[in-house]
C-alpha cells in the first residue's frame, strides 16, 4: 500500500507481502516468478522487471544468500522500489529495461532468514539436515559447481563454510542454477553480501586472473567511483581471491564459468562498529549508494553485448 518502511528490517512474511504489492501495483513492469522451494519447503520467489518480449537479455541480482546479512535483503527491497519508481524517469534505467529484463531474488536463503528472526540472529547457512549428521546447514555460497570443495570451503558440517555433500546439493542453489541455465540469456549476475565494503569479480577459487580481468577491473572501478559519489563511502575492488580470500564453490565463479561475463559480488558497507548488526538508520544510505554501482554495471552490460 506504499507504506513500507525502508528504514527498518522486516520479516520474511513482510518482504513477501511487499513483493506481492509491487507486482500488483506495477503489473506491466513487475511480476513474481517462483523458481522452486527451499529445504523447508518455503517458496523461492524472484521479482521479474520486464517491459516485454520473451527470453530477452537479462540481469540477475540476488541478496541474502547468507541469512544474517540483513542489510542485503533491505537493500534488495529498496532497489526493487527504486526500479519501479525510476523507470520512465531515469534515462539509463529506462534504456536498460527497454532492452533487458532484471531478475531479483530478494531472499535467497528463506529458511535461514526465518531462523534469524526466530532462533538465531547470527545464522549464516541454510537449514538442511542429513541423517547421522549432527550439525545443521550448508553454506550456500560454497555449494556451487565451480571449484567445489577447494580452498576456502570446509568439509566439516559444523563449519560456517561447510560446502555440503556435493555440488548443488542444496535446493536453494539448484533452483537458481536450473532457472539461469533454462533462461540461457543472463548476461550479468550480481550477488550481494555484507559487510566489508568491496566489489569483486571471479575468481574466488583460484588466484588465476580470468580472461576478462581487465574489463571487469575497470568496470568495478567505475562502479565503486559511482558509489563513492553518494555518501563518500570507499570500497575496494578486485578479484575475490586477491581482494578478500580464497573461496571455492561460490556463486559468481559458477556464473562466470557458465558464460556470464559480468559476474560481481558486493560486500556492502561496514561502519566499522556493528558488523552484521548494522543499525536500521543505515539501510537507506547503503541502498542509495549501492544503486549507483548496480546501475553502472547494468549500463555497461547493456552497452557491451556479447
Amino acid at each position, binding site marked *: 500500500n506504499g*507504506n513500507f*518502511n525502508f*528504514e*527498518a*528490517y522486516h520479516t520474511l512474511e513482510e518482504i513477501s507481502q511487499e513483493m506481492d504489492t509491487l507486482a500488483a501495483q506495477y503489473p506491466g513492469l513487475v511480476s513474481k516468478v517462483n523458481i522452486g522451494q527451499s529445504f523447508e519447503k518455503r517458496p523461492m520467489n524472484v521479482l521479474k522487471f520486464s517491459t516485454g518480449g520473451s527470453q530477452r537479455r537479462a540481469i540477475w541480482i540476488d541478496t541474502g544468500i547468507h541469512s544474517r546479512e540483513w542489510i542485503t535483503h533491505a537493500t534488495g527491497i529498496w532497489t526493487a522500489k527504486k526500479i519501479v519508481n525510476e523507470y520512465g524517469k531515469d534515462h539509463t534505467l529506462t534504456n536498460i529495461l527497454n532492452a533487458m529484463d532484471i531478475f531479483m531474488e530478494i531472499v535467497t536463503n528463506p529458511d535461514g532468514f526465518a531462523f534469524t528472526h*526466530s*532462533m*538465531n*540472529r*547470527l545464522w549464516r547457512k541454510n537449514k538442511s539436515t542429513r541423517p547421522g549428521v549432527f550439525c545443521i546447514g550448508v553454506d550456500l555460497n560454497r555449494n556451487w559447481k565451480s571449484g567445489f570443495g577447494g580452498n576456502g570451503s570446509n568439509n566439516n558440517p*559444523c563449519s*560456517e563454510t561447510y560446502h555440503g555433500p556435493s555440488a548443488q546439493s542444496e535446493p536453494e542453489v539448484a533452483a537458481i542454477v536450473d532457472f539461469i541455465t533454462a533462461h540461457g540469456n543472463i548476461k550479468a549476475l550480481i550477488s550481494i553480501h555484507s*559487510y*566489508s565494503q568491496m566489489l569483486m569479480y571471479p575468481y574466488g577459487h583460484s588466484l588465476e586472473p580470468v580472461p576478462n580481468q581487465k574489463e571487469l577491473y575497470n568496470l568495478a572501478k567505475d562502479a565503486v567511483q559511482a558509489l563513492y559519489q553518494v555518501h563518500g563511502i570507499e570500497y575496494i575492488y578486485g578479484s575475490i581471491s586477491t581482494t*578478500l*580470500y580464497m573461496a571455492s564453490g561460490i556463486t559468481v565463479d559458477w556464473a562466470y564459468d557458465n558464460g556470464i561475463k559480468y559476474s560481481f559480488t558486493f560486500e556492502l558497507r561496514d561502519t*566499522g*562498529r*556493528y*558488523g*552484521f*548488526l548494522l*543499525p*536500521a538508520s543505515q539501510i537507506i544510505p547503503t541502498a542509495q549508494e549501492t544503486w549507483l554501482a548496480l546501475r553502472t554495471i547494468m549500463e555497461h552490460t547493456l552497452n557491451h553485448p556479447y
Partner: protein
Amino acid sequence: QETFVGDQVLEITPRNEEQIKHLVELEAEEHLQLDFWKLPTIPGETAHVRVPFVSIQAVKVFLESQGIAYSTMIEDVQVLLDKENEEMLLNRRRQR
C-alpha cells in the same frame, strides 16, 4: 531463542603471515566456538571475530601471548541485538 549475552566481537590486526597462521589455528579450535565475521587474510588488514563469553579470557590470553594486536569492536553482542529488536518492535507499532 539463542542469546549472545557477554559475547564480544574483537577486531584483530595480524602484523605478519605468522600471526595470520596463529589466527587460523585459533579458528580451528572447535571448543572455543569462534565465529569469524571477517577472516584474517593480509598482514595489516583487520579480522573480526565473535567470541562467546566463555571463551573470551582464553582468546585474549592467546592473542596477548603471541603479541597480536586487538581491540574490542562490540562489547556485548546481545546489547546490540536488543536494540535492533526494540527498533523493529517500535517500527511495527508505528506502522499499525
